[in-house]
């Protein structure tokens, strides 16, 4: 039987010339993230900076339709804990993210159009924590038309939606410094990035040293911006990650004890039975 298969394989091998290797797409660069591993968590400060980078750089083209402002203040979110205004160095938290002043303030920076119940006319109102992040475009067609035919992807679950996840997005954001290979021709408005499948994409480099002013003394480099915004996007893709891992630990410990007890019971029941 084995010889038969080996013969078949050899025949097949002879019959098929090997295909030439295709254009190189670089594998994403591996980066150490704070949330990796069974105990990894997000760094709130980093999520706050990432939100800032998203708002000041990405949000002009990329929507995050599934995110609401209230998410920013929920357990595990960037503004879950705020400095206590009355006690220096202590933190306060809010049972309902609706009452979180930072969340309210961020939401109030945006205006939303809704129908006035009295008149039926459109009217503008300030954003509230329950509102979704605003979409920079009125609809998908406008998003595509404004970007050379390819609508910028929504960022709500972008880290889950790309193979390579956080590593891929970070590599892509920082991957514009490569020389364009000879066999790649770029049309106007196109850019070369070897981490992007196929290497050619419409988005140009977006992160430049010093472009986003951080309030604290975190380095204001493109590297740092990329890391921060990817952390924010990773959180946004799965806001309950910390809860999931915490609960998982308890469940695993419980099941381990339960399994040991079941094994002892099994040994006990079968103690005097040959099988």
């Amino acid at each position, binding site marked *: 039987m084995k010889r038969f298969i080996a013969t078949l394989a050899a025949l097949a091998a002879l019959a098929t010339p090997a295909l030439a290797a295709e254009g190189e797409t670089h594998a994403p660069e591996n980066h150490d993230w704070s949330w990796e591993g069974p105990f990894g968590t997000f760094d709130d400060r980093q999520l706050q900076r990432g939100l800032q980078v998203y708002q000041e750089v990405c949000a002009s083209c990329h929507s995050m339709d599934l995110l609401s402002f209230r998410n920013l203040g929920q357990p595990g979110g960037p503004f879950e804990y705020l400095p206590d205004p009355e006690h220096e160095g202590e933190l306060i938290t809010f049972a309902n993210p609706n009452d979180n002043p930072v969340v309210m303030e961020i939401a109030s920076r945006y205006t939303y159009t809704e129908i006035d119940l009295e008149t039926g006319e459109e009217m503008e109102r300030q954003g509230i924590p329950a509102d979704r992040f605003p979409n920079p475009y009125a609809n998908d067609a406008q998003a595509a038309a404004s970007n050379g035919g390819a609508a910028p*992807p929504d960022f709500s679950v972008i880290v889950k939606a790309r193979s390579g996840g956080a590593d891929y997005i970070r590599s892509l954001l920082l991957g514009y410094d490569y020389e364009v290979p000879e066999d790649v021709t770029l049309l106007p408005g196109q850019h070369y990035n070897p981490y992007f499948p196929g290497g050619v994409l419409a988005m140009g480099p977006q992160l430049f040293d010093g472009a986003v002013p951080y309030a604290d003394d975190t380095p204001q480099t493109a590297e740092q911006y990329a890391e921060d915004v990817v952390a924010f996007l990773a959180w946004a893709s799965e806001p309950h990650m910390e809860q*999931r*891992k915490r*609960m998982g630990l308890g469940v695993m410990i419980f099941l381990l004890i339960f399994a040991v007890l079941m094994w002892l019971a099994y040994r006990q029941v079968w103690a005097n*039975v040959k099988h």
Partner: protein
Amino acid sequence: MSHQSTYEPKTGIEKWLDSRLPIVRLGYDSFVDFPTPRNLNYWYTFGGILAVFLVIQILSGVVLAMHYVPHVDHAFDSVERIRRDINYGWLIQSMHANGASFFFVAVYLHMFRGLYYGSYKAPREVLWIIGVVIYLLMMAAAFMGYVLPWGQMSYWGATVITNLVGALPVVGEGIREWLWGDFAVGNATLNRFFSLHYLIPFLIAGLVILHIWALHVPGNNNPTGVEVKGKGDTLPFHPYYTVKDGFAIVVFLMIFAGFVFYLPSVLGHADNSIEANPLVTPAHIVPEWYFLPFYAILRAVTFDFGPISAKLGGVLAMFGAIGVLFALPWLDRSPVKSMRYRPIAKWCFLIFVIACLGLGWCGAENPDNMVFEFGGIGMPFVVLSQILTAYYFIYFLVILPVLGFVEKPKERPESIEASVLGSSPAAAPAE
């Protein structure tokens, strides 16, 4: 049931109920006192594990249906809402999605165990056939369930699989449109898939009852394949197998929990986190892992065969791969059940398992990619999948029928008890 009932109602209410609806008696005779071969190993625990996973899937599924919106405009967002806003929705959704995978892990091990120990042979043919029907329904439920989140893989998987029907001559196109209820996979398709996805698990639950019934008439097979001869061969199901199954279930749940809590999306595909878009096809469409071997068989047929086009041939091969299981009880001509005592069949079975795993590998790869490449020559996956597909069918249609005549089985123990005690055949059945 085949054995004499030993249930004795003790309290007044038990007697009252027993003379009207002997359901306690049924449960007692089936799961407490049922005489079970004493030599069942851990491969026999997957039946109980499967029952647990059917319950997990139904419970979590009923919960998800409370929050899911079966409409093309809302399906994707509603699943994300479950993961984000519903209390513990992330947990229940993860249990359901990973539960499907673990359901298939357990069912494949359950089936391989049946194949190895000859559990499909007389007098258990009906038991086996009900099992294959359950497996088919599981595949249907899993396929339709995967469409519901309405991601790119959902949409394009549904498109590819429903297009298979179009390969049927004459009626194919009509049936395909009837399945869709539209000119392509669309809202009507999503709605009916949701409805059927909710229905099928209850059909499965009904068939599971028949499956257990059909198991309890002849009783369990066992690793020796020698039928139960006397009381010394068996133990009451409770506590011996409740505790053994229970231990196995907890261990299996531990692995399951590891995935639910620490690798929740590792069995999924990144493209399914992109909302379905009928205008853009993902670069590489793959089904869930548990369909990969069949997907490989489907793609292995790349040539026309007489009047049968390659496309139709692939569909026939794929369905034939499951269809052949129905005929298995009559294809295997060997009088010996357990492959423990079948020196040649044992090796053919091992190769069969490897072939199935290999087909899974082929299903995950692009057919034109190379399995290996050396000095300018190599073998693409499509060729490997053709070889393995050929072996899959040869195993059932040639090897098992022929081995029944040419293979000389090893000596089998006189009885289960004799095999357990390791003594020679002399041991008389215990009284």
